[in-house]
């Protein structure tokens, strides 16, 4: 647990610094106070994509190596990733409403890919919850992870194609008006959120190891079935 404490402490310090920069920077000329979401939204989206990539990698490695640690890595990354994805989507909608006048841009391939990923994560977690056997759970989850690796890039590509060929551009905030302190906050929190992601994944893996150890305690199948009490049948 020591490494988790070290990572969490590092993450806390880094996130604290990043948030301090975000909160103390002057407001943006165009976006006003909403520009402070730069300290949360892009780092959350970065971690969402990172978590997905790690899940995909862990899934493929499990299919190749069939060792527990890859399954733990993939599932821990999904659980942490779904939280950051939700934060990224929510802050993005708040930001979009404030800056673009709409909470959602159907033509943004990153937004659409993130939304798809979010539901894939939810499906992945639902699938894991539905299976008791750890090997079966690992195998089915890994296959879903591998299927998602094939389809999600296609989602990105298809939405990008849609945007390109429709030739309508969403209004984007002009980054050149951002104060340097705000860009610094975003940069620091990119690193900080990544450290936080790693800390949470490592902690979740440690918890999964303990859960696995607890699950294997107990009688060998067969020994758990006692002989019936035949002379007590009438007493029921």
């Amino acid at each position, binding site marked *: 647990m020591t490494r988790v404490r070290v990572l969490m402490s590092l993450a806390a310090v880094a996130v604290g610094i990043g948030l301090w920069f975000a909160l103390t920077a002057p407001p943006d000329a165009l976006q006003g106070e909403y520009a402070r979401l730069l300290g949360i939204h892009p780092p959350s989206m970065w971690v969402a994509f990172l978590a997905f990539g790690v899940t995909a990698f862990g899934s493929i490695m499990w299919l190749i190596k069939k060792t527990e640690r890859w399954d733990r890595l993939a599932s821990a990354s999904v659980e942490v990733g779904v939280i950051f994805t939700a934060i990224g989507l929510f802050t993005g909608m708040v930001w979009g409403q404030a800056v673009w006048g709409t909470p959602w841009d159907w033509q943004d391939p990153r937004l659409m890919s993130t939304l798809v990923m979010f539901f894939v994560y939810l499906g992945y977690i639902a699938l894991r919850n539905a299976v008791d056997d750890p090997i079966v759970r690992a*195998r089915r989850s890994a296959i879903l992870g591998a299927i998602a690796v094939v*389809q999600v890039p296609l*989602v990105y590509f298809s939405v990008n194609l849609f945007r390109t060929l429709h030739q309508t551009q969403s209004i984007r905030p002009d980054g050149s008006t951002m104060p340097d302190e705000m860009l610094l906050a975003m940069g620091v929190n990119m690193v900080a959120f990544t450290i936080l992601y790693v800390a949470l994944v490592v902690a979740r893996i440690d918890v999964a190891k303990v859960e696995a150890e607890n699950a294997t305690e107990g009688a060998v199948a067969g020994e758990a079935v006692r002989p019936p009490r035949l002379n007590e049948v009438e007493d029921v």
Partner: protein
Amino acid sequence: MRFWQQALEIARVDLTVEQRVGSTLRITLPFAVVALIVFPLALGLQLGVVSAIGIGVYWALGILFGMQVALRQSATDSRDRRDLHTLLGVDPAARFAGRVISGGVLMIGFLLVLLGAMTVLFDPSLPEGVWPVLLLSTLLVAIGLTELATLAGEVTSGLSNRTVLASLIVAPLALPLIIGASQSVGALERDTSILPWILLLIASDLALAVAGVGLAQPLEEATR
């Protein structure tokens, strides 16, 4: 050759079972047509709006109900049947291909009937030359959706909430199919090339076919 013999045999039996007791023609299709009827009523019978959204409603219902065609109960195997296939030396990839063939046939039939019903009920405003594009994209969507739903059905096989869980997995990953299909008609309306959208559908179908064949063996082990 053995691969295709096994695949076609599995498809043949699937379609035989569906023909005898299946839910596609008896339940899913009528339900989808009822859903078609709900839209104009919900829109207060504003016929101009109904006509404009006809194609979109077709694709939306086609995807959502089409998933249920591919996930139908008759296409699921009990553990004993899977064991039998394994011991008979049935190639898992052939089983996937067979399921996609039978599911694809049912899906194409389902979508074509739904398309006909939508055309009659919605009187959609269609651009010139739309029918070959609609039919081609229907075919490609049927293949891709069947592949995706077959994979999702296998991943969730034997689980108590299989149909809902598999639908949750399929729906977001079917986005390229929805975009490709709807935009292929949209391109005609805008007088632009349909090629990128058709290629998107073909790429999606091919990627899913490769995934299905490549993952067939681990899928078989996962569901034993």
